[in-house]
């Protein structure tokens, strides 16, 4: 018995100017119904001003098993951070 609606991931912008953030998922027959369900399930107390719904199967995620080698390239590049550079104490506004 597989009567399930497709699964959707829900992203909400909580206030104007902020980015959309993942809040959870839900089942719905299509995108429009997913939006309405997301409104009813995730914004009952005005938690958002904008909603995205994305089919879960459309998301490609990095593999946690490989996360060490995957993120390794950035590990030894401390020169990408401002604190890497020495500036005399009396220099202001930098």
């Amino acid at each position: 018995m597989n009567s399930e609606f497709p699964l959707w991931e829900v992203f909400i912008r909580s206030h104007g100017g902020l980015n959309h953030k993942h809040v959870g998922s839900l089942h719905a027959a299509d995108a429009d119904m997913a939006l309405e369900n997301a409104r009813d399930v995730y914004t009952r107390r005005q938690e958002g001003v904008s909603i995205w719904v994305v089919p879960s199967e459309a998301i490609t995620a990095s593999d946690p098993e490989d996360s060490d080698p995957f993120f390794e390239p950035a590990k030894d590049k401390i020169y990408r951070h401002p604190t890497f550079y020495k500036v005399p104490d009396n220099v202001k506004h930098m």
Partner: protein
Amino acid sequence: MSHQVELEERFQARIDAEQKIEPKDWMPDAYRKTLVRQISQHAHSEIVGMLPEGNWITRAPSLRRKVALLAKVQDEAGHGLYLYAAAETLGVSRDELYDELHTGKAKYSSIFNYPTLSWADIGAVGWLVDGAAIMNQVPLCKCSFGPYARAMVRVCKEESFHQRQGFEIMMTLSHGSPAQKQMAQDALNRWWWPSLMMFGPNDDASPHSAQSMKWKIKRYSNDDLRQKFVDVMVEQAEVLELTIPDPDIKWNEERGHYDFGEINWEEFHNIIRGNGPCNKERLAARKDAWDQGLWVREAATAYAAKRKKKAS
């Protein structure tokens, strides 16, 4: 095998370091199974929990009480959905979870197998049952499994209005006419002991607790949480000017806690076995709602298919 041991050790080290486990991370089968059981039982409890309260929506004594109760029951539906979604990240389908509820294979909280006989019971349910639920749920916000912890943060945020609306109903009744006060007292008498049972068996009769604590799914023992609940509720009952139906309640200076009487575990196990006052009624109502909604689900699917065809 040694690879397995190594994986398990690394897993436990992450838990000990308070790192969250996410759905795609490696986890022991028993951890996954424990969580699927616990989260789905929790979800079922939210869904079945709508029934005893839904019973009073049409008979709420005022419009103010009615919109509040309606909002609360809607919240319970939402909580069930957050929790089902969290359980599904572990690889079970919604259909499987519903099927387990509808066939009686899965359990839900024993408390919802008691009837709500008067309007005052709605007050007692909000005050006591939601109060006990909050006591149980707040530590779950720090549970080691990310999706469960995040769902619980949302649930706890919403749940606090539930308890306050229940307390307000109790306060209004207990400070009303003598008949109203008696109604509130009767409701407290009926719901007190079942609320204490919500924390589960005593620690020495709760065999899975130690493992759940080690995995940081559980943070406090059943008896610790129950004691915390009693300590809080004794003082709130005084504000309500109602009497808790337990002659053994007494402040224990040495322990710094209230002592309380022995719970009737026979009653608890009887309800778990399916013989409570409303077990059959609750399950039948839930199944009816699901079956009678079939045409809606079919219509939604047909409509979505038709629109997709038109667009292509």
